[in-house]
Every structure is written in C-alpha cells, then in structure tokens.
C-alpha cells in the first residue's frame, strides 16, 4: 500500500495474508472461504506450469486474525482444502487479467471474533459502489516504498468512471497493451501517490454501505502499471457473484 496508513487490529478483520507464489492478500467470506485474485495462484508467466491445484492447495498458506505479519505467522496457518479458479482466467495471457478471481476453501472453519470476521458481498443490482468518485478502502501487506510491509496498511481510493480509466489506459497503451474488460474497474489517483502495489494482489477493495451499515467487497487487487503512477485495476466482484455464490452455496 502506498500513501496509506497502518491498520489497527479489527479495522479489516476479513483481511487474509496468503503465501502461494509469494505474498498476496485475500478476504474471508463466511467462515471458511478466502476470496483472492487468480494470479496469486497462477501468476502470469509463471515457470510452474504443470503444478496441479491440489498440490498448490497443499502448499498454500493462509493467515488470519492480525495486522502484523510475524504475529500472523505465530498464530499459525489455515490449511487449504481446495482452490477454485475462475474458468475465464488465462495465466498464459500476460496482458489480460480477465477472470482474475479465485476461491480458497479452508479445511476447517475459522472461529469468528473481533479480529476475524467475513466481508459481505454486494447486492447483485447495486452498481452505486462503482460510480465515479465512490470512495473505498483497500488494505494489504504489499509493498510500501520499495519495502515489503510487515504490517497491514490501508488506503482510501475513489472508484473511477470507466471512460476515464480507458482514456488513461489508452494514453499508456503504446507501451503496455493490457486489456481493460467489463469485469474490471479502476480506482485511485493520477497525481496523488496513493495506490496498491505488489503483494497487495488478492486483497479487496471495500466500501461502506451506509444503508446496511456493513462493509461490502467490491473489487480484488488485480493489476496496475507501476504503483502510484496512475489508476489501479481491480476485478469487479459484482460480475462474479453468480460464480462465487454457486461455489459457496454448495455447502
């Protein structure tokens, strides 16, 4: 997180720290699902192409319940039973993060408490959270000023209108031909140095729903061109609700 603040315990009780191909983030859904980005599991251009999801699940580490990485490690990892990656995600296509969403099922449900609580999913019909300027918060254990963070940080960012995102991307396109699909949205600033960065991937973009008084997950940290050099891009959770619920509802 660049330009953010240190989170205190209980500010983002859904925040998960993952360790699969390096550091990543995630958010607790219910009491045994972790919502994250697919590229934390199958990074673009990864060398381990033949590894199976079962093997990855066996190797994956998930930590919950603290804002300090060392403390999280001391609390012990939560073993993963299985990993589900959205079928649209293509790890071979380095310039297309469409479908960058995954679910990790924990082997054992976690006991909820002040420092471990799930995040809510958005209402299917509510697009207000994605309107231009709608503020949200992203937390993460990712890079801050070139250093990997030892504490959970957060930053508040506005959602940006789709046209603005596209326009900004087009201005960068000559150098980086990345696809900006309908399943993404962008947030952040062009000049202010507040953004998410490497190691924050999989963490979620949340908004506070004043009607219900609940925090709702709207995006997943997906990709960006550098860090704090423009808008960041997030997987648009609203478009994947059916897929998420289809899996989570099985149990």
């Amino acid at each position, binding site marked *: 997180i660049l330009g953010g603040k240190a989170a*205190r315990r209980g*500010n983002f009780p859904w925040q998960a720290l993952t360790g699969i191909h390096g550091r990543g983030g995630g958010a607790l859904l219910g*009491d045994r699902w972790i919502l994250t980005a697919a590229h934390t599991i199958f990074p673009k251009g990864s060398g381990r192409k033949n590894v199976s999801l079962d093997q990855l699940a066996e190797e994956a580490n998930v930590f919950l319940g603290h804002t300090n990485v060392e403390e999280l490690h001391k609390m012990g990892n939560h073993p993963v039973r299985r990993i589900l990656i959205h079928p649209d995600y293509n790890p071979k296509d380095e310039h297309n993060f469409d479908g960058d969403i995954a679910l990790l099922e924990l082997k054992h449900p976690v006991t*909820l408490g*002040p420092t471990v*609580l799930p995040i809510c999913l958005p209402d299917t019909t509510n697009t207000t959270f994605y309107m231009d300027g709608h503020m949200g918060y992203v937390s993460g254990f990712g890079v801050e000023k070139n250093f990997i963070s030892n504490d959970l940080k957060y930053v508040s960012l506005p959602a940006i209108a789709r046209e603005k995102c596209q326009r900004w991307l087009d201005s960068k396109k000559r150098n980086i031909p990345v696809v900006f699909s309908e399943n993404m949205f962008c947030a952040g600033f062009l000049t202010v140095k507040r953004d998410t960065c490497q190691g924050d991937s999989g963490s979620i973009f949340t908004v506070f729903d004043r009607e219900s008084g*609940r*925090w709702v997950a709207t995006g997943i940290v997906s990709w960006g061109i550098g860090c704090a050099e423009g808008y960041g891009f997030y997987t648009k959770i609203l478009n994947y609700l059916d897929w998420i619920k289809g899996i989570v509802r099985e149990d």
Partner: protein
Amino acid sequence: SSRVPRKLFGEITSPGYPKPYPNNNNSIWNIQVPKGYVVKLTFRYFDLEPSQSCFYDYVKVKADKKNLGRYCGQLGSTTGNHPGRKEFVSKGNRMHLAFHSDFSNEDNGTVIPYRGFLAYYQAVDLDECDPKNAPGDDEAPQCQHFCHNYAGGYFCSCRTGYQLQSDHHSCKVECSSELFTEASGYLSSPEYPRPYPEDLRCNYSIRLQKGLSIILKFLEPFEIDDHQQVHCPYDQLKIQARGREIGEFCGKKSPGRIETNSNEVDILFLTDESGFSRGWKIHYTSQKIRCPQPVPWDQFTIIRDLQPVYQFQDYFVVSCKTGYNLMEGNQKLLSFTAVCQADGTWHQSMPRCEIVNCGSPSSLTNGAFSYVSKPANNTYQSVVTYRCNEPYYQIVTGTGSERFTCSAEGTWLDEDGQVRIPACLPVCGKPVNPITEVQR
C-alpha cells in the same frame, strides 16, 4: 369197610342182601359225594334183629362227626329202633354207615333169618347261601354282600362300587382311582350318609381342562373319626391341588367351601379298621381361573379398559401417559400386553413407566444452549434455547425458533416440530473496530 364210589346216588345193602345177613359181621361204608353237595340217605328196606337199645345187631349212621342214630328191628316191632322213612342228611359231603351182627339170630331157640337192609343215598345240592348252612356260628356269613347258590357250589358278589376280594368272600370298596372329568359333580365317601367302611384307601381325582379352577363345597353331614387332642389320628380326608397340600380334615366341622385355584385336585380318604362316622360328600364346581388384579407401579401407567375381574385367557394392555416410556428393566418396550395363564399368573410382569429423556441437546457450533425450564434436565417437556456467539455470528432458525422442547418421542423439537437445530452464520462486514477517519 368199603369206600362208596363218589357218585351222585347209589344203594348200600347189608352183606348177602336180600338173603339173611351173616352172623358176626361188621361192615362199614363211607359215602362221599362231590363238594357242594350233602348226602341224603333213606332206608328202603330194613330188617335187623330187634334188641333193646339195638344191643345185638344194628346199623349206625354218622355224619359230620356226629352220630345220627343206631338202628335195628323190624317195621312195626316194639323193641329196637327202626328208621322207618327217616331221611338222614349230612351237613358235609360225607356220611358214614356201620353194620354189626352178633353171633346168632335166635328167638326162643328158633333161628330167625333177618334179611338186613337196603339203603339208598343221593347227593343233594347244598344251599351254602342259607345261613342255616353256615359252617359254624362264630364264622362270618358265606358272602359279605351277595351269595349265589348253584348245584354243587356257590359264589359271592358285591354291591356296586365294591370289589370281591381274593378270598372270594369279602367285598371292598374300589376307590383307589376314581376319576372325575366333568365340569361339576358330586363325590362322597362310600356308603354316605351311612358309615363308611374300614380300611379305605380312596383316591378321588378331579381333572379338568387347563384354566379352570375347581371349587369344593362340602355338604352336611360331615363326619370323620377324630380325636380331641390329636389331629386326625384315625381317618383322614386329604385334599391336594397339583401336589400342593390344601388341608387334612376330620371331625364334624365341615371345611365349607374351598377354592383350589387349580384344575387338578386329588382327594385322599384313608380310614382305619374301626369307627362309625357317616363320612362326607362334596359338590364340586369349576370356574375359569382368576389372575391377580393388575396394579400399576406408578401414576403414569395406564391400564386400558381395566376389568373388575381377570380370568384365564383375559389380557390387559398397558401404556404410559404422554411423555413416558414403557420400560422393562433397562429395555424400552414399544407396547405391552399381559395374558392370564392357566395357572392363574400373568405371563409377564407389570412394566413401569419412565419419563422420556431426550438426552443432551445437540451442541451448536459457535453457539450454545441454555435451559429455560427448571430443573435443568433433559426429560419430557424440558425447554432449552439456543443462542449464537454474537456479534460475530447470527442465529438462523429456519421456520421454527431457537426454543426446543423435549418431546414425548424423545427428541428435541422446535415450535414447528422440527428436529434441526439453528445454525450460527457468520456476520459479514461489521468489524468491531472499523477504521475512522478524523482528519478532514
């Protein structure tokens, strides 16, 4: 002497008859007829020298060790003892005849030829049944009950219920194996109400079908030899039911009415060699055997359609009040029926009713239950309520509620009758310590 052949009749004559008998002659005849006959003898011709007291010549008749007379003379003579047409009859089957002649038969120097005698004997059937023909005064009659004479003998018979003994004379009551199988009837001591015979060993058995109970009712008079100090030392009336001793009775006080509770009763009547009591008579009847009235162990037991009396083959059904289980030992019964058996017992004992215990309520993950009802236990109608660990979990109850009651079926049910307990679902998006921005 000569032995007369054993014939049914015959003639005996003096030596040389019809010529005059010789002097100095002694002749003896032993007449014997078959047993069962007597000898009847008559003189058809008799002509012996007459003398005072038949001193010279004579015929002597003996029978049964008695002298039946000494005879001599001629028909119409004034001296001597002419037998005339006298019939000599023995009591036994033998008769003895002796003839004697002296050295002469002269009368004033003249020899008189006396021709002797011709006797005719015949066997006459003896009526042994006639008391007059009893062998001796001190001996018992020929037959104890009935005497039947026939030519050459007799036989005895007994009254109904008596049996002729091996001595062919005495009669004894045959009562050693009297069997009664009718549902009701009478039985009595022999000769009742006249005094019963001596030395009885009577055994009366009443055998009815299973499930019937025999009732004995003694009729008056009741009279069995007894003793004021010792219990029934002489004659005894013993009553047993299926080998179980009911009583031993004597005296003049009737046992009255006895319910034996058995379908098999044996009555033994033993008497000694003396006494003059009139005996006893029983009217027996039968009714279906009764079982004890079923009594519940507790106030929760219900006996369906309780009857005032339970007899053989009757049954009763037991159930429990709602919320109680039928128990036999540690085993739970689905139903219970007891049948009255032929021996008057129930085929299984009364069960008890135990309050239903639902066991500990299912534990709730991330939640707990607490008892609403007092005392806090798991029995019928106990109530618990579930709650979740708030604020991190919220309770989901489906259609029912979080209140569960221990049902009569032994399961915890909610108000909709559902078994499924609530669930504690995570509460999302509500951090206890959310971020707050102060600086604007």
